């Protein structure tokens, strides 16, 4: 205690400040470089003292260089399901975030204020529920001090995360479909994929045009925040297309038996059945049960994200189904980037990429463009710049818009791709580019 103790020493430490520490680091690095040069010029390795000093300074210099590099890394937090039924979406999202970060690094990094920054993706498992979403928010914001969320999945966990990000000036990207998480009240929140608001109307219009005999439709949704919001939008879209919604039912996410739900749907004898936001594997099981019960009609999964899970569980019963959020990768229009990423993802995930995962790649590209436009890495400044920039997304040139729908431009504008299962294969039947992109001359 007479010497002030360790407490006094620790209390003194912050007085050096960050700038002083950086200056010392730079001096050490310079010294290291000088000694390295001296060693090369004089070629006198026989002096052990000099060799040891050189080695020490190289080590210190190397460490300093590493510290400098770490200081120029921007962490992108990810709140995604990495276990349970949604694990593949989360793992795919994390992998695409890493790929985008690597692509940005290859292209020279993010150049802001004369410095070059690199992205690093940090993912935590939100288990697709609100409680774990809150835990992930705590880890990302309090422990990792993340100031940019590169992607978050699931309306319930995203709501838990958003309660903190907006208050603590953290920019949040999300692929959650709920419309309730967007708007002028949430200026730091941005959606990086098409949601039912973007998909529903054009998809239903296309399905109705292709199948004019449809007069009635029955809806089925998972009974959670995502399903409840999707149902309202789907109901309006079918009504707008002149189709009567004869029933709308719910099921618990995680259900393994769909016979009762299918029996109820079949009993409605509707011309079409829309499974709205049901995951592909669940949708396949419902279509299989419907086929077993003899129902034959038009099959739609508005936010159907992929054919692999659908066909895996539904088999031939899924033939003809329309999907609103799936992508084909074997057509001539597939770009080298799309092919490279899809091939890589198939090796890791065992299935093709879907729109949910792709959003994680696009968010990184959007962030790079906005940071360079704003010449700042402050979330508020980047959020202001985001609606002003255009960038190369997975789908081509893209930007943010959607002010007419949400009250503020927070929606990434990417094409709505209508696909259909034909002969067991996913085929693109329509690609509807957002009118706003054309009007702004982005595409």
């Amino acid at each position, binding site marked *: 205690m007479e010497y002030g103790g360790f407490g006094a020493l620790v209390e003194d430490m912050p007085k050096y400040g960050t700038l002083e520490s950086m200056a010392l680091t730079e001096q050490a690095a310079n010294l290291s470089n000088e000694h390295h040069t001296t060693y090369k010029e004089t070629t006198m390795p026989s002096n052990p003292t000099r060799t040891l000093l050189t080695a020490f300074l190289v080590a210190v210099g190397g460490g300093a260089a590493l510290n400098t590099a770490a200081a120029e890394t921007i962490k992108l937090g990810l709140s995604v399901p990495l*276990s*349970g*039924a949604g*694990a*593949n979406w989360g*793992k795919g999202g994390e992998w695409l975030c890493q790929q985008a970060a690597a692509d940005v690094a290859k292209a020279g990094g993010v150049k802001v204020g004369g410095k070059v920054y690199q992205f690093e993706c940090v993912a935590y498992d939100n288990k697709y529920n609100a409680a774990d979403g809150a835990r992930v928010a705590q880890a990302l914001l309090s422990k990792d001090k993340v100031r940019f969320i590169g992607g978050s999945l699931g309306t319930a966990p995203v709501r838990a995360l958003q309660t903190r990000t907006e208050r603590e000036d953290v920019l949040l990207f999300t692929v959650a479909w709920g419309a309730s998480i967007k708007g002028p009240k949430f200026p730091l929140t941005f959606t990086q994929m098409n949601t039912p608001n973007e998909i529903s109307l054009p998809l239903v219009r296309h399905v109705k045009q292709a199948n004019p005999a449809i007069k009635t439709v029955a809806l089925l949704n998972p*009974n959670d925040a995502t399903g409840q919001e999707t149902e309202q939008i789907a109901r309006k879209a079918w009504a707008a297309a002149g189709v009567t919604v004869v029933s709308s*039912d*719910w*099921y*618990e996410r*995680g*259900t*393994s*038996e*769909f*016979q*009762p*739900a299918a*029996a*109820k749907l079949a*009993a409605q004898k509707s011309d079409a059945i829309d499974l709205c936001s049901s995951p*592909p*594997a*669940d949708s*396949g*099981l419902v279509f299989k049960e419907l086929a*077993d*019960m*003899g129902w034959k009609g038009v099959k739609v999964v508005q936010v159907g994200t992929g054919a*692999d*899970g659908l*066909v*895996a*569980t539904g*088999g031939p019963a899924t033939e003809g189904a329309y999907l609103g959020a799936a992508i084909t990768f074997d057509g001539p229009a597939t770009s080298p980037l799309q092919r490279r990423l899809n091939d890589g993802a198939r090796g890791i*995930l*065992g*299935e093709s990429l879907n729109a949910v995962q792709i959003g994680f790649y696009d968010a990184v590209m959007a962030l790079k463009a906005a940071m360079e436009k704003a010449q700042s890495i402050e979330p508020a400044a980047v959020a202001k710049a985001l609606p002003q920039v255009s960038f190369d997304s997975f789908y081509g040139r893209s930007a943010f818009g959607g002010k007419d729908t949400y009250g503020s431009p927070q929606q990434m504008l990417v094409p709505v791709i209508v696909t259909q299962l034909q002969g067991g294969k996913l085929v693109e039947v329509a690609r509807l580019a957002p009118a706003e992109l054309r009007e702004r001359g982005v595409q």
Partner: protein
Amino acid sequence: MQTLLQLLFTTLQIGAVVVLFALGLTLIFGVLRIVNFAHGQFFTLSALTVAVAVPALVQHGLPVPWAYVLACLAGVAVATAVGMLVYELGFRRLERDMVGSFILSAGVVLLFEGLFLEVFGGAVRPVPPLLDGHVTLGGLSISAQRLLLCGMALTLTLALGWLLSRTRFGRSLRAVAIDHEAAMLQGVPYRSVAMRGFLVATLIGAVAGALTAPITAVSPTLGDAYLVKGFIAVIIGGLGSVAGAIVGSLFIAFIESFGGFYLDSSSATLATFVLVMLVLLVRPKGLLGHG
């Protein structure tokens, strides 16, 4: 009338899988006095093995029925072997220890879910149907695959009933379940009976997983939904009671089927939990429970 028949048959189809699952849970509880929450992992492992093996064997030129038989045998063998490993390393040391076994089985669930995700990946695996087409019974169109599953479930349940009532091993199991100390005084080798009881229970769960593979979404989390249903079924029927497990399973299936049709699937799930509470209020040991 047609709808009623359809719903009754749906009850039997759903009940068939839940019965097989619940029988395993109740057997383990009866003999070891533990609740094995990891039972669903052996069910899942068997289904995943079938999902991997069937397409691989078919690709090597084996006809689908033979591929299916071999894959089922492999699935059941792998899951049972892993089950026995877990028993030897863990549950054997925690017999009749409810708290210890609860913690162990919860840990095993997390461990296996993570392992399955790493080994098999998170994607849903397609399993070709063993039987294609439909059978028309009383004006009802029924999937041949589902009908086969019902038949297998009935056969297994009857076989288990015979095993318990007509064999020396079965009588030992029942004696241990009623009073293990009295059984030991009568010369019943408790350790051996407990080990074989766990083996039979895991085997039944593995068979259920293998049979369910072609009609469900096979993924690392497959067992979770069945675990909840199976657990509710044995609580309603009475922990440790074989007849109770069957009654409880059919009760669950009935609510799921009729509730799902006349209300919706979500309300049916809610109704199941409400009815469990009511049953436990009236009969705290379950409908046929005695322990």
